[in-house]
């Protein structure tokens, strides 16, 4: 991409790229590790709840 040295163009490019790389993509499928972890924690929670009954 040709980078226009105009300041406003550069600033816009910077802001666009910050969002592109570091905002987090909600449409990207989550790696299974995160949902697996939450499932595991929920199961532990359920087991603790049941043990306390």
């Amino acid at each position: 991409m040709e980078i226009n040295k105009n300041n406003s163009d550069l600033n816009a490019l910077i802001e666009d790229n910050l969002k592109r790389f570091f905002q987090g993509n909600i449409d990207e499928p989550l790696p299974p590790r995160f949902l697996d972890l939450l499932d595991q924690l929920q199961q532990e929670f359920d087991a603790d709840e049941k043990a306390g009954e």
Partner: protein
Amino acid sequence: MNTGKPPDRAAALTAHIPALRGFAKGLTRDASLADDMVQDTLEKAWRNWDQFDPDTELRAWLFTILRNSFLSNLRKDRRIRVGTEDLPQPPLSVAPEHEAALTMRDFQRAFHTLPLHQREALILVGAQGFSYDAAARLCGVAPGTIKSRANRGRQRLARMMAEGTQLPADTPFPT
């Protein structure tokens, strides 16, 4: 005390995973380490859920947990500062007329030459949409400090991108 029903807690945490990953990637530069940090954050948040004040913003709380963990690990292992596993490498042999191709057009590489505090400020304010006040509370500094860090970061990025600054492939990432 906020105990939360498990499904609500899991759903609330899941919704913030993409943003946490974005934040972590900006801090570490290492995608694998970033996901480790996010996983650690989720577990800490779950286990300390009763400490979360539901009248405050969950995202800010999660970001604070992740940030604190990152800084704690940074003090323990200085190698974390340099994450080169997914660093794009230039071709091994480059004709002189193509050296311009090695100049700083890669935004991610330019970004990761910034000091940690500038990267953090730019991610929070520029990418994640935190206000200067909210970002300042998260980082434990004055709003003016966050604004200054973000502005200096933007200026350095703009200068590198305008000048096409050339960096060697093994340029360390300062923190």
